[in-house]
């Protein structure tokens, strides 16, 4: 339901959604194949330190914990009520949650507005608003944070620690991002599924993320933006970069968004494009771009000028990058035009057949020492705003060695606040290199285009 601006009491309460001292899981089943059981199981498995109160009218014990037949039987304070029961039970649960003075309500249950039960969804939302009990959902997968070992939902794993706050209407995409996090070291500060977002809105999580010490970038997946005014206001308040992917622009996608999370998109996509621009957020077109750009904005400082130097041992990666930079409106300049001195100095790190143009091709025979010297020289040059490095694994390339060199240089030059992005295009050794680089805060990608997208987004963030 629409709001005009983020409500302070909601923003203030969101800490109970992501770092509660106690949780009541309503619908906590005794059976391991059921969602309600998994919620309790995952909380325990990932080391949640607070109190867990399983609620199930049929059970006396769930996963070794005393079970309560109703919320009202719990005599201790409950920060968060997580609801995983069929829709027809939810209304009653909400009244119980109000009665026990719970501070936050999360409804995972589906079968509300998205299947035509708008009245039921609106009724419970209005009641929650009257009672000042913030409601996240319904129709969501859950939320969590690796920093607090908090995995609340039917979510198989936590992401690795990192700077990205992932706020997603889609549970499936959220899970995909969590998978990526595990597989490719995409570090997150917290994540949350909003589902139908009947009550708590994007804007409120945006304002919460601003105060979260681990968050450096907000990544938001939107199916429907029903409070655009609040979204713009909150984005403008936030100093951290925001990446948005807004779907539902195709004719059938528009309908699918409603069927999925009851998202209504009454305006043309150009309208939402304009809203996102007005909010100062960066809009990604594809899921991959969304993740790539988020990674860069989360880990690296903004690119303060247009002077990007690319250092590569492969001419092909360089050329792909050149074209894509130009395509995106940030053409590479020749190195002599950026810094004539650097153009001279960098020759020391390449064979005679190398090219100091830009991309700087230090050739397929480049050693770890040559890479390290070139990276260091480029980053330290006062005329250079950012560096894009590329590793193409030839038979003589020490991919691991170059990776460690890149990490060392990045560490030594971090006070310069210049973005440093890497391309590692190749096989398994490159996949490992990407993970290692990312674990040290260097956004690294498999393809040139991904890395260029990231660098261009860093430039946009500076503007």
């Amino acid at each position, binding site marked *: 339901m629409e709001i005009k601006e983020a409500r302070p009491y909601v923003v203030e309460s969101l800490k109970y959604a992501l770092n509660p001292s106690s949780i009541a899981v309503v619908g906590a*089943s*005794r*059976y391991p194949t059921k969602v309600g059981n998994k919620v309790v199981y995952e909380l325990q498995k990932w080391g949640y330190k607070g109190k867990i109160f399983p609620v199930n*009218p*049929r*059970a*006396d*014990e769930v996963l070794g914990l005393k079970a309560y*037949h*109703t919320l009202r039987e719990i005599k201790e304070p409950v920060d968060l009520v997580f609801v995983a*029961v*069929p829709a*027809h*039970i*939810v*209304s*009653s649960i909400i009244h119980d949650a109000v009665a026990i003075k719970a501070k936050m309500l999360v409804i995972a249950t589906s079968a509300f507005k998205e299947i035509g039960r708008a009245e*039921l969804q609106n*009724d*419970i939302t209005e009641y929650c608003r009257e009672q000042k009990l913030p409601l996240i959902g319904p129709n969501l997968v859950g939320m969590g944070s690796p920093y607090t070992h908090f995995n609340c939902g039917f979510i198989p794993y936590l992401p690795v620690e990192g700077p990205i706050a992932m706020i997603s209407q889609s549970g499936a995409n959220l899970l995909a991002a969590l998978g990526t996090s595990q597989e490719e070291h995409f570090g997150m500060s917290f994540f949350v599924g909003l589902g139908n977002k009947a009550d708590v809105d994007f804007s409120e999580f945006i304002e919460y993320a601003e105060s979260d010490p681990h968050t450096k970038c907000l990544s938001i997946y939107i199916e429907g933006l029903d409070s655009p005014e609040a979204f713009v206001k909150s984005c403008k308040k936030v100093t951290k970069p925001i990446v948005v992917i807004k779907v539902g622009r195709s004719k059938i996608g528009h309908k699918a968004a409603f069927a999925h999370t009851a998202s209504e998109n009454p305006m043309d996509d150009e309208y939402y494009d304009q809203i996102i621009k007005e909010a100062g957020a960066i809009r990604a077109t594809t899921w991959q771009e969304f993740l790539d750009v988020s990674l860069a904005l989360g880990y690296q400082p903004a690119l303060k000028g247009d002077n990007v130097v690319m250092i590569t041992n492969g001419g092909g990666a360089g050329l792909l990058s050149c074209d894509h930079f130009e395509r995106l409106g940030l053409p590479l300049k020749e190195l002599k035009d950026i810094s004539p001195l650097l153009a001279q100095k960098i020759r020391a790190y390449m064979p005679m057949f190398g090219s100091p143009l830009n991309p700087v091709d230090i050739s397929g025979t480049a050693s770890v020492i040559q890479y390290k010297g070139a990276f260091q020289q480029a980053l330290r040059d006062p005329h250079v705003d950012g560096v894009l490095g590329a590793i193409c694994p030839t038979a003589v390339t020490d991919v691991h060695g170059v990776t460690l060199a890149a990490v060392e240089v990045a560490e030594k030059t971090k006070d310069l606040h210049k973005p440093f992005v890497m391309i590692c295009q190749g096989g398994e050794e490159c996949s490992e290199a990407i993970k290692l680089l990312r674990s040290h805060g260097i956004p690294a990608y498999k393809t040139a285009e991904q890395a260029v997208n990231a660098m261009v987004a860093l430039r946009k963030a500076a503007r």
Partner: protein
Amino acid sequence: MPKLYKIGTPEQQEYLRDYHYNPKGMAFSEPGVIASDAKEFLAFNIAKSFYQVHPEVFNLAYVEEKTGIKKEEAAKRLKRLYDEKLMMLVKNSCVNIMGFGLYYWVVKLKEGTSKEDRKDLYDFFQNNDQICTGYPMDEGGEFDFYNGNHMRNLDNLFYGVIEKFRHRPYVEWVHICPVRRLIRESSVNQFDAKEGYRHYFFEEDQVKKAVKLQKKMDEKDFAIIEALNNSPTVGEMFDYMVLSSLSGLPAKEMKEDLIKAVDHDRGVIPMIYLNYAALGLHQRFFLVSLFENTPTYRSEQIADGLAKDPRFVNFFDFSDAHHNYMLSIYDELSDADEIRAKLNSYGEVKEVLESLSSRQFRRWTARLDYENGLYEECVFTDDVLLDRSTEGM
């Protein structure tokens, strides 16, 4: 000359006139099939979710009118009956409308089977979620287990259940008994009873005996269950205003939907199940086989005759099996000798095997094993159409 049994013969016409039932177990959805979480079932599902804590989901005003027991007292009693695991709100789905086949199977263990082996098999049946219900028999009977699956694919039954135990050395035989007619279950007449659809049988003399035998339920408790189970329509069984206030959904629509599903379409029967194990009662099962040359119409006539007897708690009528009927009575409440004599009075009856059961594994998909902390854990397997005969699926 071989017997003619085709369209137009007297035998076939006789059968078709009275016993032309819908096909069961066909691997396709019948028109009108509704899922267990469909809108039509909402009222039942709400009641099922809340009655443990809110017994007022039942129509207590109607109970008061029928029994004279005040609403408040009836609510307290229903709550106690649930808390003490004496009853459960359950539903029976009409297998031919739901598009399932209902396959029961009887297991006989070899003489001298050890207690450990018996327990091992008992646990296998108790914990196999593909089995929707079942009865373990006490040692010393003429058969040892009577279990059932709702299936749309017989291979799943064979692979997922039967093949996993039938070759154990202590198993004497396993007889598959596809259900032709589900006539009575848990004392309630089912979809294939010739008359008295939804009628609940628990006669006055049985109540008197039951009350004398134990202290957990008195006449009033039995009267409450009787009133609810024998409500003239499902419209009287629940308090739809309470269901509405608990769920936020419209009472009138829910009521109309459930009446259509239960009373009009006869697709499902909500009922209160009496957990005879918790009461200390036993069911005596009679596995009846007719002579092989008994015509089908005659076996159905016999079934209809027997079904008039209110003492039967369960009555399953089989097709394409070694056996024809499985019937049961509460052993403590009915005279087994009389029943045995009655069954044997039919010249068509070839054999009657008997066993006693002191408990049921599950009531359809709801577990009854409170000793494992799993009372009313619902384990519904809704992938009955899929091929489960591949390991790991």
